[in-house]
């Protein structure tokens, strides 16, 4: 029971962090058709910006300011980079963001060094929030969940309840009509790209403080972020929310379980020992293959349900 509760909490908090990242990616993709390869790089920029700003103005002001800085940079990238490439099509845009991710990685290495920077949890968030069966649940994790939920609420209200949200929705489904009605669709693109990267920046501040702020923090997230978006169905915010939680839970539960195929056969009454064929495969424990599970999920999903959990289109 203890294992279950702790894994559940960890899984949900990690899933919410993934959602902070993938929501921006989904917004950008659904509006512009651009799969932003550099999204995780903006996440990393958020962490580094908050670290540098935090040294001067403290953590909480930096939590607000760093995403704004990242969002501004994102808007500039859209205006002066992506828009130039747009006429060449989606593959060129993907290549541009790929190169951008590469470049941001290198800028971070040149600017802040190759090793991790000491970006620490602020004093106010030290210590446990509550205790479940002798295991402490840290305040930082709780704060992470709170920020993610607030952000979810804010994005939801912005998209459904405000004027700019309505224009975004219109530009999403009928870009030409929205343009004909006098809305500046390219500016909407710029705002959405800036907003999406700002969300990534916010996730970066939280992720950087909760885990580690190093030049490799983006690399490990790029593939998993794409898994979330594909599994969620590419264009659906609700889908990417579900997929984020699913992957967060898979990760946190798999790490703690020592189940294996051999164990399953044992339980079914088939004797498994070192002489059984494929023994090395059978003895592999779930915890050992945990890092590969999201990608297996991705491959299976693309084979059996290519439109994703809540998606509408197959490619």
């Amino acid at each position: 029971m203890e294992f279950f509760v702790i894994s559940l909490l960890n899984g949900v908090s990690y899933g919410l962090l993934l959602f902070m990242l993938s929501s921006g990616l989904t917004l950008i993709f659904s509006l512009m058709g651009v799969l932003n390869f550099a999204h995780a790089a903006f996440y990393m920029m958020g962490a580094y910006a908050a670290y540098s700003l935090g040294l001067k103005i403290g953590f909480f002001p930096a939590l607000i300011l760093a995403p704004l800085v990242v969002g501004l940079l994102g808007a500039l990238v859209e205006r002066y980079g992506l828009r130039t490439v747009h006429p060449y099509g989606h593959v060129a845009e993907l290549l541009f963001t790929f190169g951008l991710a590469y470049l941001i990685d290198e800028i971070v290495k040149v600017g802040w060094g190759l090793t991790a920077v000491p970006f620490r949890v602020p004093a106010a968030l030290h210590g446990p929030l509550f205790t479940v069966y002798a295991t402490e649940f840290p305040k930082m994790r709780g704060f992470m969940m709170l920020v993610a939920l607030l952000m979810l609420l804010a994005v939801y209200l912005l998209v459904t309840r405000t004027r700019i949200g309505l224009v975004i929705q219109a530009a999403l489904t009928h870009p030409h009509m929205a343009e004909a009605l006098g809305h500046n669709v390219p500016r909407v693109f710029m705002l959405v790209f800036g907003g999406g990267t700002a969300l990534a920046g916010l996730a970066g501040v939280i992720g950087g403080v909760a885990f580690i702020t190093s030049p490799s923090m983006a690399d490990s997230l790029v593939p998993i972020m794409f898994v979330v978006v594909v599994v969620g169905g590419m264009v659906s915010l609700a889908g990417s929310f579900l997929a984020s939680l699913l992957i967060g839970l898979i990760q946190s539960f798999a790490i703690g379980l020592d189940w294996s195929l051999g164990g399953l056969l044992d339980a079914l009454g088939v004797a498994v020992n070192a002489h059984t064929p494929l023994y090395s495969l059978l003895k592999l424990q779930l915890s050992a293959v945990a890092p590969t599970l999201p990608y297996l999920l991705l491959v299976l999903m693309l084979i059996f349900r290519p439109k994703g959990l809540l998606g509408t289109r197959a490619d």
Partner: protein
Amino acid sequence: MAGVPSKLRYRPFNLGRWLTWGLTALVMVVLPQIFTQGYAITLMSQMGIMIVFALSYNMLLGQGGMLSFGHAVYSGLGAYVAVHILNLAGAGKIWMPLSLLPLVGGLGGAFFGVLFGYVTTKRAGTTFAMITLGIAVLVDTWATMSRAFFGGEQGVSTDRVIGKPFLGITYGPGVQVYYLIAVWCLVSMALMYAWSHTPLGRIANAVRDNPERAEFIGYDTQRVRWFTLIISAFFAGISGGLSTINFEIVTPDVVSLSASGGVLLATFIGGIGFFFGPILGAVVFSFFAVALSNYTNAWQFYLGLFFVLMVMYAPGGIASIIVMQLQLIARKRFWRIAPHYLAAGASGLVLLAALILTVEMTYQLSENSANGTVMNLFGVNFDCAKALPWAVAVGLWIVGGILFNLARQRVARVWGEIQTELLQARA
């Protein structure tokens, strides 16, 4: 192929083609006789390997329109298959001449191409790109975890000197390995060029340009993509086998995402629209990776910036820039625009100097700060904590920026004039 008269393509003896291939072969034979230093041989060997790899990648991206983020999976797994076979041969368990080892790598690559390709090629476009990324991460994660086949993080090492010397060739010295790589490189180049003229190569182009119409004339687009990928994986595997021979060690790095990203960068920089583009790209990329990395730790930054600029301003790569100039030369207009190119190039150099100065000083202040703030750039010693070098950098940025912008406008204007003239002359 409208616009190309058939007599040009089906002459019994195509002199131009024989000259091009003959000259390429000659250059490959002669180069190590001129540059005999071990360092140059290493660089050229890696270029040869990268040329095969980049050309195989362009089979997907350029010919088949498939953007893959996981092509190193095939070259890397090919390299692993080759290293295990080589070790078995070294232990005397099987008979396997080293000269044919790249073929083993190629068959290994093709095997995994059949396996993974079946899954990845079900989709095209952006989704294809993402599945390849997923597969690449899957293989990469397995490679670092599994000891039996991949040898864990240390990888699998080997010794390429096996069996008795044949005609004095032991493959011990680097130059002998270079010639082995050169032969395989040339053969692979010729085969891949020939492939692009086969019916499959042609229909791959059709599937790239308009999958729907290709389906309507009776082709299964998924199968075309799959077959293309298998052949591409075969050649990628050959490059993997060559790298096994060259480095005598295979680590999980060969299947990593950065290896896949590297070949994408190389191919695109060279140009995906022309057969010879990836060859140029591989040469430039190897130069960045092998030569420039000796001088600066920020070489990947320069490479990335170069790539982004290419995507934005020259999406056809270096090859397309060259072909555009060749057209001007053929129409005797090149000398009119050449002075403006010179001006743009000179002001571009000022900007490049500003960039290098800024990047290297920043690097010295951050990562290299343990070594103090005094640094040496282009033979000049200076202290990058002082204001003067930064003022110089800012000055270079401003001057270079203004001059380059002026020169760029000139080039664009003259270019436009020439194009109008040519159009009028044709009308």
